[in-house]
């Protein structure tokens, strides 16, 4: 027994116009200062005004949103009393919106206590719309929430199925001006979702096709979107691919690359997509034997020639490294600019965080502490996994 959750997805050019047709009184937009500066809040506001809704903006979400930010936003939400909440931005803004929504409806819940087991009974006061402005996180169609506990220096993988947005608006207009570095980072995030969604221990028939298609689109269009941001086709395909990958992994769970990547992000403040994308080939090699057929499936579907399932994982890991290199992503922690001394000092914390990350549970092969330490050492040095 399992579930497949999805919002209503409105995609393609002019998808934003869907907002002008919603019914309600007040919307609360959760976003960040940069999105506001780019004029995207105004674009959303215009549609809301057409629909006859008032709105208030909370533009204080930071990258890797903290528990404190979520509590502050929820308090403002309670004062304003919206019937629609709009998460506008990258994963941080959409995840913050999801968590604020829970606290708005249930002030008694602590953000770190949002879990997939206990019913939340949301939608008593408001519903959620997500509008991504990057092509990566897929947070518009997942119920997962990643928040950062700044005191404990760790990311918290939270969420309840009820957190799923009611409507996701996937309009490429919001990624038309995305800088190459962010395009590359977030694209690697989407690729990690697609690959992990297909190879997690919780993979399922409903997600497989989504994950394969997303992987193919990303291999094909990510280099183009990074090389030429004005390539409209590549932009739109990447925006769709990220959303499709989000649906795929969101209903099958992410795995070890996320556990290790979350830890890297919390300790070294590395952008999420860069962190998980960097770790991905290493985790493919580590889990390769147990998921050999599935890695071979992916490689074949993308168009690589795979002689036997045994070589699927290695081949896919290498092709992901080639893709990353072509879009100027680091292939090791060293290349990412982490000094050896800082790495060694942080290693116990990196391992501790990864071990307690909820996404680790769905990994096809779960490493112990010693293996995690080795995995991080190999990732630091850029050495393919051989154990």
């Amino acid at each position, binding site marked *: *027994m*399992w*579930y497949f959750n999805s919002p209503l997805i409105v995609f393609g050019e002019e998808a934003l116009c869907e907002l002008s047709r919603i019914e309600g009184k007040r919307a609360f937009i959760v976003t960040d200062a940069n999105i506001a500066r780019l004029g995207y809040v105004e674009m959303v506001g215009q549609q809301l005004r057409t629909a006859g809704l008032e709105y208030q903006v909370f533009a204080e979400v930071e990258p890797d949103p903290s528990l404190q930010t979520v509590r502050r936003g929820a308090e403002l939400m309670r004062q304003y009393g919206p019937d629609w909440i709009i998460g506008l931005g990258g994963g941080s803004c959409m995840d913050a919106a999801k968590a604020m929504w829970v606290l708005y409806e249930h002030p008694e819940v602590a953000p*770190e*206590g949002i*879990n*997939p*087991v*206990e019913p939340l009974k949301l939608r008593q006061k408001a519903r959620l719309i997500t509008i991504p402005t990057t092509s990566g996180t897929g947070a518009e169609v997942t119920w997962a929430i990643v928040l950062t506990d700044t005191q404990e220096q760790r990311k918290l*993988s*939270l969420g309840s199925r009820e957190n799923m947005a009611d409507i996701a608006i996937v309009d490429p207009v919001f990624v038309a001006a995305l800088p190459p570095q962010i395009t590359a980072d977030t694209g690697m995030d989407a690729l990690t979702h697609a690959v992990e969604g297909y190879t997690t*221990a*919780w993979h399922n028939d409903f997600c497989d096709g989504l994950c394969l298609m997303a992987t193919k689109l990303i291999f094909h269009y990510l280099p183009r979107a990074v090389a030429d941001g004005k390539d409209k086709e590549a932009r739109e395909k990447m925006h769709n691919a990220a959303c499709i990958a989000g649906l795929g992994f969101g209903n099958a769970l992410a795995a070890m690359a996320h556990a290790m990547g979350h830890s890297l992000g919390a300790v070294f403040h590395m952008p999420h997509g860069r962190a998980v994308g960097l770790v991905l080939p290493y985790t493919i090699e580590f889990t390769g034997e147990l998921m050999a057929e599935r890695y071979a499936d992916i490689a074949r579907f993308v168009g690589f020639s795979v002689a036997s399932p045994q070589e699927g994982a290695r081949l896919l890991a290498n092709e992901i490294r080639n893709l990353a290199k072509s879009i100027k992503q680091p292939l090791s922690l060293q290349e990412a600019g982490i000094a050896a001394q800082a790495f060694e000092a942080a290693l116990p914390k990196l391992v501790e965080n990864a*071990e*307690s990350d*909820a996404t*680790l*549970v769905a990994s096809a092969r*779960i490493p*112990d*502490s010693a293996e995690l330490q080795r995995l991080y050492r190999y990732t630091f040095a850029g050495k393919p996994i051989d154990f």
Partner: protein
Amino acid sequence: MYKFGSEEWVKALQEAINASEAYAEAAKTWEGDFYFIVEPGGPIEKEMVMYMDLWHGKCREAAVYEDRAAKTPAFVISAPLSVWRRVIEKNLDPIQGMMTRQMKIQGDMVKIMKAVKAAKELVECTTKVPTEFPE
């Protein structure tokens, strides 16, 4: 063979847990005791109450009680026999079981979600106990 839910079964599980290096490693920071409840239904006429005190990778105490009055554990996990059987036979991931509410849990969910690997290793230990399920 041990009858599932009997005093002997619980003691055998305690031994399996205390012999498991993988569990000791995965649960090295875990502190918290449990009731594992088998809900009435089918061959189970009366609720079965198993108690385990899990502490820093070891099982300090394991027992079967007549009812829930004996202890006030930090966590209570309850499910019908068929669900426990699927977990023990590794046909159902316990975390998936909780997420689909086939298994009900009372206690600090934040703590549970940080200990998913320990939960997996605990299930692994149950597979080491030759078990006869009531039919």
